[in-house]
């Protein structure tokens, strides 16, 4: 069975999703989904272990040989992203049953688990496949499933947010499929490794350049790179908190993975950054994202919307790292991918705990939250510190590597901008902390801690934030390994 791990990674959640519909019962569907996500997490751990020990794994679906059949190709970068997606899925899922009862209709919960598992399948599939068209298909699976998940939000506006997500996501997917079509026309192959080998021979003609433009813009829409981020704040604000936590921690990360994969593996460093001047526009947009989105976050009334804008800013850091086009920059980018999944996951789960007690996420309604829900608010504050990048948290590690990478690439201005934009994060996190700890709660405010089934997943993520703020060998080791492979001759 070990040889079939790449297939099992995707097939386990894919099989469990329709099974959830057949079992019908809410509890049964929950347990099935729980076992599935944990199994997927186990598979991704084994895959990462195997990749780090013995190099790239290639799996031929249906036994058809690689450039013709669909190949699943797992290198350090894939395995790392798989670990993030399945790990966050495994932590977030135990959170759902209590959270769902509060935020949406309980009787159709088995359909929620089906959509959740399909979303996991899609994201894992995008991350694992070595075939460009297969990547597009999995991307569609994940975005349609996440559209369903977003529409389940408690507020009616969740429906318009989901619809907007659907439209924008479809535009992004269309750009990507046009790009893939053009590249297929130019090279005659869909296997990403094969494309990378054949592109230098076909020459960098106009078809290839158009394909490059379509793919990069499509990926930028999917990962919500400023100024194509407008769908994200709405979607994360109105989705159920569990869904916001899962999507914020995984969906945009997979988008960044797609961008990295196309820039560095498929088109190659030489074409992406030397033939075409891609690095500077990416860097400019990343810096703009860091500043504009953080500034907008400062002026938000709703804490959930504030976190959503902060996500746009954090995506800026990830893109900034890769736009340096050095091993250090890519490492920093991937480390931040991992760490941001941990901190945004934790913060949105803390919001989910608060949703258990009160429906409003306005900052003034957070008054006295430190007394009313001490454990939840402590988790939120710890997550906020990690977001700012205080030492001993995961956020510090990613900022540290980013600044070092910027200095090593001889960009002291960029290093300074990273520090300054972190100060903006201090302001928006402080606004919530100030309301929660230094204002008196209104006399009729609901009080009482969230149940343990909500607190434990939240605190697991917080603990991981602290753990990976001190012991960094896993994310940094894997990220460096992946970055070297990407900057070298290929994976």
């Amino acid at each position, binding site marked *: 069975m070990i040889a079939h791990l790449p297939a099992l990674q995707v*097939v386990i959640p894919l*099989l469990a999703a*329709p*099974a959830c*519909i*057949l079992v019908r019962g809410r509890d049964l569907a929950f347990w099935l989904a729980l076992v599935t996500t944990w199994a997927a997490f186990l598979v991704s751990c084994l895959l990462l272990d195997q990749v780090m020990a013995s190099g790239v794994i290639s799996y031929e*679906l*249906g*036994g058809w040989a690689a450039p013709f059949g669909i190949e699943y190709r797992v290198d350090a970068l894939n395995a790392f992203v798989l670990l993030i997606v399945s790990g966050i899925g495994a932590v977030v899922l135990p959170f759902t049953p209590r959270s769902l009862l509060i935020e949406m209709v309980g009787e159709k919960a088995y359909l929620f688990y089906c959509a959740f598992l399909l979303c996991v399948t899609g994201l894992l599939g995008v991350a694992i496949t070595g075939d460009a068209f297969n990547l597009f298909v999995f991307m569609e699976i994940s975005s349609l499933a996440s559209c369903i998940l977003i529409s389940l939000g408690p507020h009616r506006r969740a429906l318009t947010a989901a619809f907007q997500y659907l439209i924008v996501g479809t535009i992004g997917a269309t750009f990507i499929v046009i790009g893939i079509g053009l590249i297929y026309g130019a090279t005659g192959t869909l296997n990403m490794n094969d494309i990378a080998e054949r592109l230098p021979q076909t020459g960098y003609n106009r078809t290839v350049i158009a394909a490059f433009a379509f793919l990069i813009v499509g990926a930028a829409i999917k990962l919500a790179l400023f100024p194509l981020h407008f769908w994200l704040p709405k979607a994360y604000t109105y989705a159920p908190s569990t869904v916001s936590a899962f999507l914020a921690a995984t969906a945009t990360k997979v988008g960044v993975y797609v961008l990295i994969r196309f820039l560095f593996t498929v088109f190659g460093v030489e074409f992406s950054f030397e033939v075409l001047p891609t690095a500077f526009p990416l860097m400019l947009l990343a810096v703009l994202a860091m500043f504009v989105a953080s500034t907008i976050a400062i002026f938000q009334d709703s804490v959930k919307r504030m976190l959503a804008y902060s996500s746009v800013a954090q995506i800026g850091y990830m893109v900034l790292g890769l736009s340096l086009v050095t091993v250090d920059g890519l490492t920093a980018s991937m480390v931040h991918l991992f760490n941001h999944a941990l901190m945004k996951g934790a913060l949105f789960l803390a919001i989910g705990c608060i949703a258990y007690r009160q429906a409003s996420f306005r900052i003034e309604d957070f008054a006295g939250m430190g007394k009313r829900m001490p454990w939840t608010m402590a988790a939120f504050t710890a997550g906020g510190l990690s977001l700012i990048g205080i030492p001993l948290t995961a956020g510090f590690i990613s900022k540290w590597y980013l600044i070092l990478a910027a200095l090593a690439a001889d960009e002291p201005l960029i290093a300074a901008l990273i520090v300054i934009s972190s100060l903006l994060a201090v302001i928006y996190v402080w606004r919530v902390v100030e309301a929660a700890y230094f204002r008196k709660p209104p006399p009729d405010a609901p009080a009482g801690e969230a149940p343990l089934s909500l607190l434990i997943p939240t605190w697991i993520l917080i603990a991981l934030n602290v753990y990976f703020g001190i012991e960094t060998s896993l994310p940094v080791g894997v990220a460096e390994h992946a970055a070297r492979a990407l900057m070298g001759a290929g994976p």
Partner: protein
Amino acid sequence: MSDLLVLRIVTKILMPFILLFALYVQFHGDYGPGGGFQAGVIFGAGFILYGLVYGLDALRGVLSSDILRAGFALGLLIFAGVGVAGLLLGGNYLDYNVLASDPVKGQHLGILLIEFGVGLTVASVMISIFYYFAGRGR
């Protein structure tokens, strides 16, 4: 309803042919044009025609939403399950060669089974979509 006599009779006559044609497209798909998707659409169209002429309630009496929901889940399960069967019999995922004694028969059997899964899902989803559109405002 009585003034739709021609439509009702013609629908009744056509129904078995539409369903039979769907099955032909389904199971002849590996020799001629066709396959699960097309067959599913034709099969679904037969039921939708029945629903249009005889009314939504009559159609619901034949196929309830629960059956349809089970149908589209089962179709996906069959597709993915055939892949797993290949995996359990010693091949890669979705490798049909190992499903029967010789590879050609295995490929034949595999494609037939997964196309049946596709057909089941597509037909169920088509009819479900019709239910949702026709049932709006009720």
